[in-house]
């Protein structure tokens, strides 16, 4: 199956709105139909192909480009495929798409970049607001460009592999990406703490409040407290200790 560059570009642009129709019945299903609309319009069996494309699926929005490519190939190459077979295959596909995408992008890549941004901004608190915006624009560009390239690569691989797309879950690049993100995340988290401490000019009262907030969040995770409770506990303890350190 050959998908022209223009159609691929249109599908990938539309895939940015994959969650526009997110709902409890088919989750991203209607979003897939929306993304694949340029292909569905040309289909000779539009009604059945739309139903197949719109059946239940839920994965990470960026990793979904892989599924979009694979679905496009299967709709084109396997017209005899029944709606139920397609629905079952899409359900199976949802788990790796969601699990790998969420752990790599939501849990690591995005937090890593925002922690880097926060560290940079903290280290240039005295810079102009325009400089802050340039830093944020650079991080924003880096995030979106890398994900754009991944979407494009994923769509191509998906449309090559079709029903065998789950083989990509064993791609060696995933292990390499996990390792790189783990190392970078460690350095970024350490850098954030260092820059935070330095930005307080090593004032004792500030360091005590910082330490209290830090420890309470760590301990509250151990105690399984909710984020809301933990944050207010950290704030209250930090304020109290900071005030005591200032007055004694």
């Amino acid at each position: 199956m050959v998908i022209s560059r223009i159609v691929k570009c249109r599908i990938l642009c539309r895939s940015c709105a994959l969650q526009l129709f997110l709902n409890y019945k088919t989750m991203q299903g209607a979003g897939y139909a929306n993304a694949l609309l340029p292909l569905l319009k040309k289909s000779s069996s539009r009604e059945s192909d739309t139903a197949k494309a719109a059946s239940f699926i839920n994965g990470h929005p960026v990793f979904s480009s892989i599924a979009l490519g694979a679905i496009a190939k299967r709709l084109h190459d396997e017209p005899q495929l029944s709606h139920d077979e397609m629905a079952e295959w899409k359900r199976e596909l949802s788990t790796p798409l969601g699990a790998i995408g969420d752990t790599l992008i939501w849990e690591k890549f995005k937090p890593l970049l925002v922690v880097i941004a926060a560290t940079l901004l903290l280290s240039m608190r005295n810079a102009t607001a325009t400089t802050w915006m340039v830093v944020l624009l650079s991080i924003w560009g880096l995030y979106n460009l890398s994900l754009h390239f991944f979407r494009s690569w994923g769509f191509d691989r998906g449309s090559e592999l079709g029903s065998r797309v789950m083989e990509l879950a064993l791609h060696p690049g995933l292990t390499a990406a996990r390792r790189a993100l783990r190392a970078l995340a460690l350095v970024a988290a350490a850098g954030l703490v260092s820059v935070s401490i330095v930005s307080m000019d090593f004032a004792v009262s500030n360091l005590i409040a910082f330490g209290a907030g830090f420890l309470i969040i760590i301990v509250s995770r151990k105690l399984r407290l909710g984020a809301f409770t933990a944050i207010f506990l950290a704030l209250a303890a930090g304020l109290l200790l900071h005030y005591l350190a200032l007055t004694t």
Partner: protein
Amino acid sequence: MWLAALAGAVVHLDTSVIGQTLIGQPIIACTLYGWIAGRPEVGLFFGILFELLWLANLQIGAAKFAEGNLGAIIATITACEVAPSGVTGEPAWIVLLLCFALGMIFAQIGREISPFTRRVMIGIADRFVLACAEGREMSLRGWTLAAFGLHAAVGAGFVVIGLLAGRAMLRLYFGEFYALGPGDAIVNSTDNVLSGMWPALLGAGAGAALLQLVSKRDWMKWALVAAVFTGGALIW
């Protein structure tokens, strides 16, 4: 008010609906709003704090999640409306604390937003798919716009409600002329007590970053790297 509504719509759409490009993340949205409103330091303050504190607040699958991004923008918009302290020339800590609490509360209330839109979206998605199958172009555009409009209206409406609640709260606390900023007496009596807010919350944010980014088996390595960085900065 229109800028607040626009910010709410953009943040909500970007957080979980369209693009998810990071524009809706507090560190970008709040700093950008502060910059546009002429109060970049307020935007940066809330941007960094809310971003780090909600780092583990993931919008995954069908899970309910706190609307930390909308809470952050509500806090920023409300704080930007209050003039800097006449005493210190900076935003008074009491204003920042009240706005922070407002943002946190609205983030929690916002947990009900995504279940609501996902339930309403069942009907819209079904009609969209039907129009798609039947090739009705005008209907397709109409249902796409309806879905987009629902999300944008929910985001904008939520932020406007948050802003109105913030105004009411600050007016109760500071009296009718809250927009002029808290008076000298309030600033002098509260700044000393509340100035620990920034280091305490930054510490909490750094803790959240550690929990989110570094697995427990790497904590020793993390401590070593942090000590080297801090020592290096101290020497430098």
